[in-house]
């Protein structure tokens, strides 16, 4: 694993998130479930907790957008870059953007939202890319079986290096 330069991380253990808009590829309930499950990947091995907000500012602002979307890092259409997220901090810090030109799914076809979101939230919490091809934080998307997803030890080591192990 690796962290960002300067090791930015959240100074609090309870973080808020807000889903600003929804992809038409999935029902909102499925998006909500995928995002909640992706965050639980990290909260299950750390003392972190996540609370959903429906209005106002949140630590992790989540949105779907195509091409240019006002952060100077435009998406590139179908394929290629599927999402990006920012390291902990104010403003854009912690935010996660998903490329609307991908076909988002809750299974193994297209691009699985849960899997990509879990990777991006790793960035939102302070993890940088891993060189381990089996780690969640490896930068290349791969097909996987959602029913048997298990966080790789390299990812656990990384997030616990920043936030310590779970209280329970």
């Amino acid at each position, binding site marked *: 694993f690796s962290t960002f330069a300067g090791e930015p991380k959240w100074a609090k253990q309870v973080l808020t998130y807000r889903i600003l808009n929804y992809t038409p590829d999935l029902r909102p309930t499925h998006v909500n479930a995928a995002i909640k499950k992706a965050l639980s990947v990290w909260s299950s091995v750390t003392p972190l907790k996540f609370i959903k907000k429906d209005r106002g500012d949140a630590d992790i602002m989540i949105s779907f957008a195509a091409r240019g979307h006002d952060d100077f890092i435009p998406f*590139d259409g179908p394929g290629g870059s599927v999402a*990006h997220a920012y390291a902990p901090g104010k403003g854009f810090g912690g935010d996660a953007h998903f490329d609307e030109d991908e076909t988002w799914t809750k299974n193994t076809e297209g691009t699985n939202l849960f899997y990509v979101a879990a990777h*991006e939230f790793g960035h939102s919490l302070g993890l940088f*890319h891993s060189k381990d091809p089996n780690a969640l934080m490896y*930068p*290349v*998307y791969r097909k996987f079986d959602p029913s048997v997803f298990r966080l790789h030890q390299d990812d656990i080591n990384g997030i616990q290096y920043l936030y310590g192990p779970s209280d329970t």
Partner: protein
Amino acid sequence: FPADTRQKKEGMGLIQKYLENYYGFKKDGESFIWKSNSPMTKKIKEMQEFFGLEVSGKLDSGTLDLVQKRRCGFPDVAG
């Protein structure tokens, strides 16, 4: 062998874009001819090293396969 040349140029264009997006590569009037010490070759080597590929600095099939895969849009080399 025009077909082969075209494929190679397309591949180089693809990897150049990949290096610009994810490895901070800035094109500086370099041609598509492979040079062992060019900035582009160095960046290809950096990328191959990151992904555990054979570090040749050349556009081999493994490298070309990788740049065509879906990936996180965040650069692999963070400032």
